[in-house]
């Protein structure tokens, strides 16, 4: 459950204030699929960045699974960026394992999950390649891999 209550975001410059998001409220329930649509510069990314905890709202509040988001990334939240968010110095296997390594999971569990996720992402047999050796589509699927490293088994 995601709840946004009267959230605003203002960026200040030396000469003026820019309201990226002004007084927006919305609620997204479990299993619900929501698209946020609007012209370039209307604040879609800012809203998503606030929900993800990358930026704190200037006013209002945001809750994810009941917990208030205030510049802290909520647990269990997955976020796909416009750019390829893969680490170029890590292989496909190391990229998929990244979140599991961060969370200190045992090596056996990491191997098992990485193998399954590579298959799921259609990257089986490419585990030892570096991102620049993959096609654009494969890199996008690789970026998804780490996000499912926990939730897929939940």
């Amino acid at each position: 459950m995601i709840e946004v209550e009267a959230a605003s975001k203002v960026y200040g410059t030396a000469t003026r204030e820019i309201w990226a998001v002004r007084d927006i409220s919305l609620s997204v329930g479990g299993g619900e699929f929501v698209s946020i649509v609007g012209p370039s510069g209307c604040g879609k990314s800012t809203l998503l960045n606030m929900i993800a905890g990358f930026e704190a709202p200037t006013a209002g509040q945001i809750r994810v699974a009941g917990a208030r988001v205030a510049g802290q990334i909520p647990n269990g939240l997955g976020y796909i960026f416009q750019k390829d968010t893969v680490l170029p110095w890590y292989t496909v296997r190391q990229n998929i394992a990244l979140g599991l390594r961060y969370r200190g999971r045992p090596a056996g569990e990491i191997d098992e999950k990485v193998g399954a996720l590579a298959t799921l992402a259609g990257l089986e047999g490419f585990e030892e390649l570096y991102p620049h050796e993959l096609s654009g589509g494969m890199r996008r699927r690789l970026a998804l891999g780490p996000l499912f490293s926990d939730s897929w088994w939940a």
Partner: protein
Amino acid sequence: MVGVATGFAVGLLLSQNRRLARILNPYVIALNSVPRIALVPLITMIFGLGVGSKVVTAWFMVFFLVFFNTFKGGLSIERELVDFCRTLGGTPRQITRTVRVPNALAWAFTALPNAVSFALIGVVISEFVGSTTGMGYLMITSLATLNSTDMFASVVVLSAVGVALVTLIRRAERRLLRWAPEFR
């Protein structure tokens, strides 16, 4: 080695701490603006005629080259990449190790061939100014005795050392940056 290690560490630290970087910026600019050669007599006076003054001079030559490249590299890291790693549960220390260090390493390596040349220049000049051993000392004494054979030999040996060091750096680069497209 000391110049590279400290240049990399300080460059990485300041690239992550903008406030500290702003505070130290005037001092870094001032130190970097000092002609390196002008400091050699002072360094020799402080650290003596032994190895110490050569190491400090070489450090001074190398440090800023590596520092500025690493600093730029640290600033160039894409914010999305750091945010992505944060969503995966990465702590600041883990993100430094897995994202910032490898990215800055690629930038630092581009400074290393020049750093080798500068380090050799520093050591030779330091030996010109005050030393009883070394290639610089041999060249100065060769000049005094008009011994062109020893002088040419010193130049050839210094060139060979430079080529050997750059070759070692290239090998280390190929190994550490094997993920980069140019090394595949």
